[in-house]
């Protein structure tokens, strides 16, 4: 036994002090990087216990995802804005406006759902282009442009709806926000379709992780040791299969979750792996330096706002479909929730730092807090206050960590 231990020590020594220190450093980096994720897990467990297991019950998880989907979509659009050092305060009003347009086209005018969705998305792009034009080319600060937009689009909503609430939407329109995989004609008929998708995701996730490990090894980039890699892959497989199984205990995979997952993957990819993503981060880090590197910073900023408009339109469609009505006061305060999600998820207020996954985790932290407290019967007044404290503490923690590093 003791010889075995000594041998183990020997190997550790032979690996050299450098690797040891490097691993230690990586560990502290990892803790920093995953701090909010850990916080999310802790908060979830906390409420799971307090609510006697209601929070993480299959039905409640489905509800949680569907309740927060539009906020998470907004956060995905908001993050690039925050990365470039800007902000968009108009998204709540845009959500309402898009809902109002959809309501008018479908409920009042009886247009087909498909056409309406196309018109609404185009409207989102147009609104984004409008705001992006003022911010990027006229150089009016984003805070002011979008504050104006917030009033402008809210006003437009009220004009269109004339103070009324339009309802109800047809079944097909509600599909995206309210239905589950089992409601899809062909795929839904397959038994265990949700679990099947979970398995597919697990395989894909494991493959991507393994491939990136191999790639890094090939280029001589320091990688985590093999056991760590296997642990990582095992975790990915476990989480995806288990969550699929868990969701299948209720009505299966919510359709909105599929849309959300696709958006997260696509935007994470854009932010991390593409040229435009790199330009967004660089612009937020040092605008002048980015400009002097031959990057058309104005267009980057413009595109970020166009994208935000598109995401706001998507969120507007989802939200009106979920509530099954278009109301003049829809989406009030959404912009602040989306911004808070980004900051809680580690984005920097000065730009250049932040991730899509971080923003999603930040959004979920708020979602779980909301949901958990609602189940416990905590009043909306207290909920607001607690959310405020969480935002403050999360950002303070981030800043504390950064100061420690420097």
């Amino acid at each position, binding site marked *: 036994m003791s010889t075995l231990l000594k041998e183990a020590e020997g190997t550790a020594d032979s690996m050299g002090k450098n690797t040891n220190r490097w691993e230690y450093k990586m560990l502290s980096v990892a803790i920093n990087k995953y701090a909010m994720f850990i916080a999310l897990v802790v908060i979830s467990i906390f409420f799971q216990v307090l609510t006697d297991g209601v929070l993480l019950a299959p039905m409640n998880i489905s509800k949680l995802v569907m309740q927060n989907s539009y906020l998470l979509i907004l956060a995905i659009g908001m993050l690039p804005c925050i990365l470039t050092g800007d902000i968009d305060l108009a998204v709540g009003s845009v959500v309402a406006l898009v809902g109002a347009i959809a309501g008018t086209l479908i409920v009042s005018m009886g247009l087909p759902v498909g056409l309406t969705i196309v018109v609404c998305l185009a409207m989102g792009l147009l609104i984004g282009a409008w705001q992006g034009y003022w911010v990027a080319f006229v150089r009016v600060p984003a805070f002011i442009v979008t504050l104006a937009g917030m009033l402008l689009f809210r006003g437009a909503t009220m004009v269109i709806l004339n103070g009324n609430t339009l309802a109800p939407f047809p079944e097909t329109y509600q599909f995206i926000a309210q239905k589950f995989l089992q409601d899809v004609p062909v795929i839904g008929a397959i038994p265990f379709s949700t679990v099947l998708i979970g398995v597919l995701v697990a395989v894909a996730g494991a493959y991507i992780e393994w491939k990136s490990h191999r*790639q*890094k090894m*090939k*280029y*001589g*980039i*320091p990688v985590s040791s093999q056991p760590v890699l296997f642990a990582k892959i095992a975790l990915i497989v476990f989480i995806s299969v288990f969550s699929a199984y868990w969701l299948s205990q209720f009505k299966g995979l919510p359709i909105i979750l599929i849309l959300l997952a696709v958006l997260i993957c696509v935007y994470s990819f854009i932010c991390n*792996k*593409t*040229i*435009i993503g*790199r*330009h967004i*981060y*660089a612009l937020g*880090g*040092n605008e*002048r*330096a*980015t*400009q*002097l*590197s*031959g*990057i*058309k910073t104005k267009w980057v900023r413009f595109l970020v706002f166009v994208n935000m408009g598109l995401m706001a339109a998507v969120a507007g469609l989802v939200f009106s479909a979920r509530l099954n009505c278009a109301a003049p006061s829809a989406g009030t305060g959404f912009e602040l929730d989306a911004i808070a999600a980004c900051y809680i998820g580690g984005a920097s207020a000065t730009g*250049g*730092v932040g991730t899509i996954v971080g923003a999603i985790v930040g959004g979920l932290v708020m979602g779980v807090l909301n949901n958990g407290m609602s189940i416990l019967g905590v009043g909306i007044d207290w909920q607001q206050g607690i959310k405020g404290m969480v935002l403050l503490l999360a950002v303070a923690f981030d800043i504390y960590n950064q100061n420690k590093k420097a």
Partner: protein
Amino acid sequence: MPKVLLEMKNIVKEFAGGVRALNQVNIQVKEKSIHALVGENGAGKSTLMNVLSGVYPYGTYQGRIEYSGQECQFHTIRDSEKKGIVIIHQELALIPYLSIMENIFLGNECQEHGVVNWGKCRFEAMKLMKTVGLHELPDTPVNKIGVGKQQLVEIAKALSKDVKLLILDEPTAALNDEESEKLLELLLMLREKWGMTAIMISHKLNEITKVADEITIIRDGKTIETLTKTIDDFSEDRIIKGMVGREITNRYPQRLDCKIGDICLEVKNWSVYSPYIANKLVVDKVDFTVRRGEVIGIAGLMGAGRTELAMSIFGQSYGTDISGDIIKDGKKIKISSVADAIKNGIAYVTEDRKGQGLILIDDIRVNTTLPSLKKLSLRGVVNEQEEVRVAEEYISRLHIKAPGSHQFTKNLSGGNQQKVMLARWIYADPDVLILDEPTRGIDVGAKYEIYCVINELAKQGKSVIVISSELPEVLGISDRVYVMNEGRFVGELPRQEASQESVMRCIMQSNKNKKSAKAV
């Protein structure tokens, strides 16, 4: 024997992670003397001064500080200021939109019960401004006066605090020769008339040998030696020897077997107007050429318009109403954006690497590849592994001292930051590389390495244009020198004819011509 005002004994300062910035440093400063502190970047000069002024509070370092014969334990900057020790940092700590007067008395207002007595403030400010030779209205906002005058405001601010020991960190780094001269004379005057003692950190050895009474050399966190004006050899070569630990016989690498080829870039009749001041001509009908494999220098005083010239060529990054022709490889080209300039093989390395060059919150890899991402990507997707390989290659090629390409650029020393900037633009593979103040604020060793890189580039057939305020540097590395003064090129000197005197003569001559033209 003059009295010893300050003595720091066996100072040891360690940072988190076990980095020992100071190791048994000893320094003695005599009363009414100017004491220079020299050493390469990262030698520990600024750290030592931060220990002295209480930026690093008592207890975070080991050793003993004695001031006027008493042991001192400073916990904050205020503690040291109470004793009359004032530090002026390299980056000036002035509030741009406040007036000179308000800045002088910031944190030290003439007040009674929390109410400021502006009349008294103004009176005192005028007195101080007269002492330091600052002829401006006390109500002028600080951002409306030049860096040289801002430096004087800092000194006036120090005087208002009854300074006995003034610490200046690179006071002349951002000043031109004339302003530097003025500042140094002011220091000498304050020493004579006010009995002020000063510690001065500087890289400009010619200034140090001129004003310092004693020089302490620091290397790798240790005191190497202290030279005294009247006793020791006080020459620049002697100081450099102490700083780098060996004798540098040649501060500039030799330009050997340089094959100068055809004309690569020609700029004709180039004029640029200031975007800030209406109708101010910043660059006035400039013509120049640079050949393949040639290094040309653009010499001139600060404010001559050299940076403006370079930036206006580099995709109109500066100025309005730009006119003139750019001819590249015999063909006239039009450059209206930075992207155009890069496409046409022109690169510009900025003089302000922190403000306009690096993305400090990103790592070496990201900073190196920023303008060249297209080369590293397929259908808009960046190949990160290849990117890391490129970054690592440049780290070893340019001897960038960093643990790896994942190192954040804000954690690098000035010299290494500059090398990252060079890596960025060398990887972009331009034909013409414009380097603006490539060695500003960099230590002697790193400077030599950068000169070697410049030679290497020229050898590969690239054209290099070097803008520098240090005349010896321009003369030491260029094949041909253009002299710029007040927006115009006033001289072109081949290597054999270029000397400090001939360059200055060109400038003087042009000034004279201008005066006589005005008289007519």
